[in-house]
């Protein structure tokens, strides 16, 4: 059993709680920093993993994004606080893009090695576990081959379950345009997966 992700969105009242954490952080409470970090660590790294080529790059990008987001938070006036997550994810996206440009590399297909993708390993029999692993590798490989914008929207909205309004801020689009981007992205991913699904009887 894996514990629920500490960063799960709690729904209503969440943003008010987050604003209080940011205020507490600004007034010198180091626990507020740790709480904010815990809420976002998995998802920030998750987005970075999907937008960079190696786990090492992803960790550097995620770490730098946290440093910058907290610097922003320190300088923000109380009434201008928007979502901390939206800042963080936007920074991840821009850092990942910079890194790609520096390396002058096209999007590489990163091989989703099992040890790099810590996955909820519930008690499952071995066959099921192996099938799941293969399925995961297929999915991640297909995802990593998509254009950046598609990877970003699928990671935010589907993998990380970030609310559409917040994903829209990160992507610099309206919520409606974000949804339509999401639908196009899912279709593109489906097209990549469809080859493998052909002939599978349950479908």
């Amino acid at each position, binding site marked *: 059993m894996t514990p629920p992700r500490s960063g799960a969105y709690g729904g209503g009242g969440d943003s008010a709680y987050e604003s209080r954490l940011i205020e507490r952080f600004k007034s010198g409470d180091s626990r507020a920093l740790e709480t904010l970090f815990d809420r976002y660590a998995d998802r920030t790294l998750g987005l970075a*993993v999907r937008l960079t080529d190696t786990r090492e790059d992803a960790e550097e990008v995620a770490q730098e994004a*946290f440093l910058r987001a907290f610097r922003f938070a320190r300088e923000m006036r109380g009434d201008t606080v928007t979502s901390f997550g939206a800042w963080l994810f936007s920074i991840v996206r821009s850092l990942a893009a910079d890194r790609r440009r520096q390396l002058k590399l096209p999007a590489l297909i990163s091989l989703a090695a099992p040890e790099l*993708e*810590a*996955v909820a390993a519930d008690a499952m029999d071995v066959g099921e576990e192996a099938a799941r692993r293969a399925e995961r590798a297929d999915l991640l490989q297909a995802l990593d081959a998509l254009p950046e914008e598609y990877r970003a929207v699928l990671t935010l909205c589907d993998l990380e379950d970030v609310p559409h309004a917040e994903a829209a801020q990160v992507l610099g689009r309206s919520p409606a345009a974000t*949804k339509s981007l999401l639908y196009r992205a*899912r279709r593109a991913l489906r097209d990549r*997966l469809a080859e493998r699904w052909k002939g599978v009887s349950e479908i």
Partner: protein
Amino acid sequence: MTCAAALDLLGPYVDDDLPTESRRRVEAHLLTCRDCAWEAQTLRLTRERLRDGIGEVVASDAFRARTLARLHADNAHLSPTADVPEPDPLQFRLPFKV
């Protein structure tokens, strides 16, 4: 409903984001059109796979520790964490002389 109209609505349909009336019309179309039904089913499956936690990344303890250490160093205004209190010397004193 035409296939083109149904395809336009499949995105929100799969997300359960359609008003009841439109959802019913899409469903009626899907019952009669194999191609659109396949489209809906594979989109739904794609969404489910993604949401299944299948691509979930978990930050390692090493990454957490490293990043938190840098964050603390970068935020000098923070007061030290009270998470690990100084051990109270009295607590370990034996109640009798050895």
